[in-house]
């Protein structure tokens, strides 16, 4: 068994695709119409055969209260690896991305947390 896809719950798939590609730098992998929504995934250009990230609609009634509760407490929905948290923080902030936690080193691990503009907080980490 392997993990081939994970997901973030997004308000608007098209808006999410723009943010996750234009701002974060991922590339579109699959875009398949599925009823009202799309099977829309992105991958890292550094690992195009790696785990895909599904930009999944948050239309289920339980999804938004869940997202709002996590966001209110500053809890990220998922976490991405970067080579240099401070450099990525500066790059993203320069692109107008809002951070709820600036880079913080704790026990050899540096993290930061930003708003993905789709209702989620995302953590970046350098272990």
């Amino acid at each position: 068994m392997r993990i081939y896809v994970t997901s973030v719950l997004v308000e608007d798939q098209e808006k999410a695709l723009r943010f996750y590609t234009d701002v974060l730098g991922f590339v579109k992998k699959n875009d398949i119409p599925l009823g009202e929504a799309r099977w829309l995934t992105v991958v890292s250009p550094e690992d195009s055969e790696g785990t895909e990230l599904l930009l999944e609609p948050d239309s289920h009634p339980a999804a938004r209260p869940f997202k709002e509760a996590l966001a209110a407490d500053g809890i990220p929905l998922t976490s991405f690896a970067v080579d240099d948290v401070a450099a990525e923080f500066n790059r993203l902030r320069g692109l107008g991305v809002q951070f709820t936690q600036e880079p913080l080193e704790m026990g050899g691990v540096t993290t930061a947390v930003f708003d993905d503009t789709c209702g989620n907080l995302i953590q970046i980490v350098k272990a």
Partner: protein
Amino acid sequence: MPNESAKRTWQERRTPEEFPAARSAKACVWVDRQVNTCLYCSMSDVYKALADPTRRAILDELNERDGQTLFELCARLTTKHGLSSSRQAISQHLDVLESAGLVSTRRQGRYKFHHLDTTPLETIVERWRPARGRSNT
């Protein structure tokens, strides 16, 4: 009169708009009774809040970086202080600190940030400041 001015500052903050803790039932009674007579009650909350090592660690971390989410505070307490408290327990500690006026919260968009407020500590310093007399009881 330094003591008088410190006390006034403290009192002026004691309105529901400026001081979130005044929304609690206890604080409302306290405000109703006029601030002067019950200054002692409020300071008891401050001493009680400071008596707990986890709450002091929270203040230490907010002093290092002001304006943190609950998530960041929990991460700091776990990794830097070796505390194993649940997120809910930390949230309750924050409520105690907020009731004592030592922490204030700010909502920004969908996020909530916690800030350190040392104003109540100034009252303590004033109370035992040498050679200036005491005005509190």
